[in-house]
């Protein structure tokens, strides 16, 4: 980030009497500094854009994910926000409801963009009948396996059905007396993001399609049975204690050779490779149950702020980020593109694991798009924790969660 240097140069140019008519566009994002995302953005994407648009100067600011929502809120309240931001898809309706975001329906070329991107990620930008952002990258979770541990247990390929999944877990479990020394699978924690694929794949639901109530969905027999299955596996030692938030984390456990499999997004692979160079992994879709093989859509949208003074220039940069070139460049850093036309691109086709993720994305659902999603998530996850710590039965906990979520959705 050489913004200060840039400002200095800019300032000295102005002082020297050279009239500079540059528009500065500030862009906030959560690209990971540990991976190459941020490096490619600042060393390639932004310079390329500035070369094409010499009158625009893009200043990018990296903010850690955990602090991002807070920082956005503070800046929105003080009206000192950026022009553009890359935000988690689940925050888009909330910020739209706060009145912080610009409606983009009538921006030049939006209709074209709308038809070029995947419909699932696009749907996360809808609030009150309008669009308040554009999808920028997408992801989902798939299963990640250690092929050597599968082979050692006599399993030739990852399971594709729930029944197969269970027998796979049984084969992979290793015991030393009463102590379990190897688990077949690790669900990383008692959180919506990790449990939703299991609920959906077994035919369960969280809310009605219109997101107006949870009773009858979140506590329906199918959802209860789906969660109960996980509880039974956990009690039988078929999946690791990480689902209750204890024991080794999923990555540490895979790295230590104690977990044969786990579930995660496409960012897991580069991190696992960096931390555990000896570990080899393969990917497979979620096993299909009564609801099919359904995972959860993640990813980021790019949004324009109402308070921005440079909307035209900011929109130009947004459109550049959605160009084929920029999307493919970011794809090399682990960001799955959102353009439908890129599915057949040679880079994507030849990629070691994007294929599995893209296949899973065609059968993945978005979390309920609602301005109060953060609160809903807390209420549901609170009950998940009660379930996996053995304090409540699945039915009692989900009844309570449904009732509390209903109060929020009212």
């Amino acid at each position, binding site marked *: 980030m050489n913004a200060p240097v840039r400002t200095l140069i800019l300032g000295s140019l102005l002082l020297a009497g050279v009239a500079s008519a540059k528009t500065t566009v500030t862009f906030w994002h959560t690209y990971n500094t540990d991976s190459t995302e941020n490096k490619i953005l600042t060393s390639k994407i932004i310079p390329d854009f500035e070369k094409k648009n010499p009158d625009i100067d893009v200043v990018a600011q990296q903010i850690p994910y955990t602090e991002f929502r807070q920082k956005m809120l503070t800046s929105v309240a003080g009206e000192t926000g950026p022009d553009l931001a890359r935000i988690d898809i689940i925050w888009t309706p909330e910020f739209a409801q706060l009145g912080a975001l610009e409606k983009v329906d009538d921006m030049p070329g939006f209709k074209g963009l709308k038809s070029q991107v995947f419909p699932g990620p696009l749907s996360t930008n809808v609030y009150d009948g309008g669009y308040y952002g554009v999808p920028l990258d997408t992801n989902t979770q798939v299963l990640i396996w250690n092929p050597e541990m599968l082979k050692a247990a006599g399993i030739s390929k990852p399971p594709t059905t729930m029944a197969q999944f269970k027998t796979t877990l049984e084969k992979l479990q290793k015991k030393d007396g009463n102590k379990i020394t190897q688990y077949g699978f690790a669900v990383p924690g008692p959180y919506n993001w990790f449990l939703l694929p299991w609920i959906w794949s077994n035919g369960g639901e969280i809310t009605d399609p219109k997101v107006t109530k949870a009773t009858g969905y979140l506590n329906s027999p199918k959802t209860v049975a789906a969660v109960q299955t996980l509880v039974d596996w956990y009690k039988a030692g078929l999946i690791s204690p990480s689902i209750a938030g*204890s024991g080794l984390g999923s990555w540490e456990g895979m790295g230590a050779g104690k977990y044969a499999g786990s579930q995660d997004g496409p960012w897991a692979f580069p991190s696992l490779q960096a931390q555990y160079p000896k570990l080899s992994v393969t990917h497979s879709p979620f096993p299909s149950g009564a609801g099919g093989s359904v995972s959860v859509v993640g990813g980021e949208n790019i949004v324009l702020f109402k308070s921005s003074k440079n909307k035209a220039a900011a929109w130009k940069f947004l459109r550049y980020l959605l160009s084929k070139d920029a999307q493919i460049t970011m794809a090399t850093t682990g960001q799955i593109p959102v353009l439908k036309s890129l599915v057949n691109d040679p880079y994507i086709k030849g990629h070691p694991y994007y294929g599995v993720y893209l296949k899973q994305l065609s059968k993945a659902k978005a979390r309920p798009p609602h301005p109060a999603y953060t609160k809903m998530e807390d209420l549901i996850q*609170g009950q998940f*924790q009660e379930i996996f*710590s053995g304090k409540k039965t699945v039915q009692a906990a989900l009844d309570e969660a449904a009732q509390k979520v209903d109060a929020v959705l009212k």
Partner: protein
Amino acid sequence: MTTARAMQVQKRRQGRRGDALFALLLVLPGFLWFSIFNIYPAVYAFWISFHKWAILGESEWVGLQNYLRIFSDPIILIALRNTAVYALATIIGQIAIGFVLAVLVNQKLPFMKFFRLVYYFPVISSWVVVSLIFIFLFNSEGLVNFILVDFLHIMAEPKAWLTDPATALVAICILGIWKGAGWVMVIYHAAMQGISSSVTEAAEVDGASPWQVSWFIVFPMLKPTTLFITIMLTIGAFQSFIQFYIMTGGGPNNQTEVFLSYMFTQAFKYLDFGYGSAIAFSLAVLVVSISLIQQRFFKEGA
């Protein structure tokens, strides 16, 4: 003669007035700073607490609604319980351990300065850092479980300390005691310097053991110090936030919430700034009341 005296008085008066003005000038920067960054936000938060506060656009005046909501919120009761448990456990623990440490480092032996520094070290270390360290210590694969299970064989199975509300509270209390005992030690140690050695020597001549001297003579003489420490630690316990926020985040299912962590969640996570401010002000009233009661209690016992 008289005129000369009158002039002297006049001068002195002027001097006094000048002094007062000068003193005001010296105080002014600090006072301005305090007003802008402490008083103004506090008053503004008080204003917010009577509203359904909107970040952008119009806020709605709701009167006492936010304050009334506190009385019907079950999580407030949980926060009250946890804060009370944390306050009791950590205050008693810190005073007991701090006093014992103060007696130990008060001896005329070599290396005492070094030990004082070692015991004081947790006090100056960052809450965030030590909270993170304690997460690792109390992890189900962490050092605490290793010692209890594999080393001492007290427990058969490793425990997930931080995912069970009761044991998570124990872990956070241990952190609070470990971090604050050094501060208590320093205060007691300083107060002990003010106790005349003739008193303790008289007791020793009468055949009291060193511990009897400490417990029956020194500790009662330090009552004002104990009052000061208790009030400071109470205020600190009620304002605890970082250790709870980092170690459990108020979870599982809000079971380890304390006032400030819950205030933070309501205001900055759910954007309910009106309710968050009301919680903060109710807490302020509670802390002041408890401090006043403590002062009464100690005075009556004196």
